């Protein structure tokens, strides 16, 4: 922060700025994702118009929806376990907020450049399962419980390919730090041609595909949306939630979609760096970096949502078979191949 603003801040002031930044970025990112993809891209892909009334081309629809959610009464079933019921969406939201802490958007545009970067992100993303299970159980509703259990089974199964897909990148970059991974890509060379750097998507294309598929499942989006399959489970673990609490789940889900897209953009597409930017700081990098990262993130998010809108739902057994019999062995092979290449070259 000192580098960009050229002012010295005390530790607690820095901390406040960072916390505020994350608190602002998460809802904004969620709003952009929902408005762009869920409302407009999805509608146009399905030959519909989508929301058109609020604002030009429906641009203010989200404001209207947000206001609607805030107005609604927060209800809980009579037999629900109140405390757990209220805490569950908070746990999911906490996991999403923590994801944003380590994503770098410039040489000094990162809330905390942890040494363990990507590993921290994967660890906190696993907390959301807990919130989903709590929601499913505390609702005192059989649909919610089945949805929660399905979600837990699915998230555990797809956590493994998610982590293993990242290992290839970590081996190639030689560091867990996301800033370090960006640097490794910027300083890489494609057969001696170093101008463009080496985005890891060229060498880790299997990892990239695995990461996107696992992300899709982690977000419980179609085609992996058995936990919230509306035709059989109403809305799974979310069924009893209303008003603000439902909005928390919503924020958690699409905020995580943005965070995972940003992580994929950082690990596979070179992150905030494009040719010409200074890696070690400087005002230009800090101003353009976030825009570059945002563009790359939206590109990845488009891929994720494209799949969401076009593929039908997998059956529960197909879903588990896909993870355990195909994705996990493939990701292990990818690690093996990356290791061999790392040693040989």
């Amino acid at each position, binding site marked *: 922060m000192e580098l960009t603003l050229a002012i010295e801040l005390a530790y607690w002031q820095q901390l406040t700025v960072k916390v505020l930044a994350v608190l602002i970025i998460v809802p904004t990112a969620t709003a952009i994702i929902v408005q762009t993809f869920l409302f407009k891209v999805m509608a146009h892909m399905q030959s519909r118009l989508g929301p058109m009334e609020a604002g030009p081309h429906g641009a203010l629809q989200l404001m209207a929806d947000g206001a609607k959610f805030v107005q609604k009464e927060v209800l809980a079933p009579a*037999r*629900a*376990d109140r405390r*757990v019921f209220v805490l569950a969406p908070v746990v999911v939201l906490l996991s999403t907020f923590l994801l944003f802490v380590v994503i770098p958007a410039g040489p000094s545009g990162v809330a905390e450049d*942890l*040494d*363990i970067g990507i*590993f*921290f992100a*994967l*660890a*906190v993303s*696993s*907390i959301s*399962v*807990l919130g989903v*299970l*709590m929601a*499913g*159980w*505390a609702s*005192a509703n059989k649909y919610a*419980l089945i949805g*929660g*259990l399905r979600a*837990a*089974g699915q*998230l*555990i199964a797809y*956590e493994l390919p998610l982590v293993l897909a990242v290992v290839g990148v970590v081996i190639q970059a030689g*560091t*867990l730090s996301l800033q370090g991974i960006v640097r490794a890509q910027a300083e890489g060379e494609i057969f001696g041609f170093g101008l463009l750097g080496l985005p890891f998507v060229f060498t880790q294309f299997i990892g990239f595909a695995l990461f996107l598929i696992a992300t899709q499942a982690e977000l419980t989006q179609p085609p992996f949306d058995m936990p919230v399959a509306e035709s059989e489970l109403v809305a799974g673990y979310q069924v009893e939630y209303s008003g603000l609490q439902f909005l928390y789940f919503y924020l958690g889900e699409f905020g995580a979609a943005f965070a995972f897209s940003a992580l994929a953009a950082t690990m596979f597409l070179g992150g905030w760096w494009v040719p010409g930017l200074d890696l070690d700081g400087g005002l230009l990098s800090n101003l353009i970096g976030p825009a570059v990262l945002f563009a790359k993130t939206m590109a990845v998010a488009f891929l994720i949502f494209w799949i969401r809108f076009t593929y039908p739902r997998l059956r529960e057994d197909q879903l588990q078979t896909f993870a355990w019999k195909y994705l996990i062995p493939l990701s292990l092979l990818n690690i093996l191949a990356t290791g061999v290449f790392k040693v040989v070259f």
Partner: protein
Amino acid sequence: MPENIAFGILALVATLAALRVVTTRNVVHAALYLVVVLATVGALYVLLAAEFVAAVQILIYIGAILVLFLFGIMLTRPTIGTDTGLDNDQRWIAGVTGLFLLGVLSFVLVDAFGDEQLPDLGGVSREALTAERGTAAVGDAIFSTYLVPFEVVSVLLLAALVGAIVLARRD
């Protein structure tokens, strides 16, 4: 000094949550209190500048083991409210054992360290600390000094995995 205050708060939270794990009459609540205990232990690792271990604690204990606990509990007894038959006659023995363990551990700590002070890290830069104790240092240590124990543990885990599959597929 702030570390000591943070440690005090975390220790208090962990102890209270741990007490609730064994006194609550609801199995799911017990598991959720255990989450609090494990999360505070993870925070203690952060206080010790062991970020990697802290992340492992969160990923493995909360993200995997406790989720599996909850999964099992919810799959087998999906009722809300108090459960009967959670207590048994061994609670006094367990209490005595717990106190005995507390005594032994306290004695060992005092006996081994006494008045010793940890080195002051006030002047040490974060980079130096990371180079000495960071993830890379942990990795180096595992694959050089502690290679044999690491391999033994790996084989043990593999055996447990194979055993679990054999047991599950017995039908």
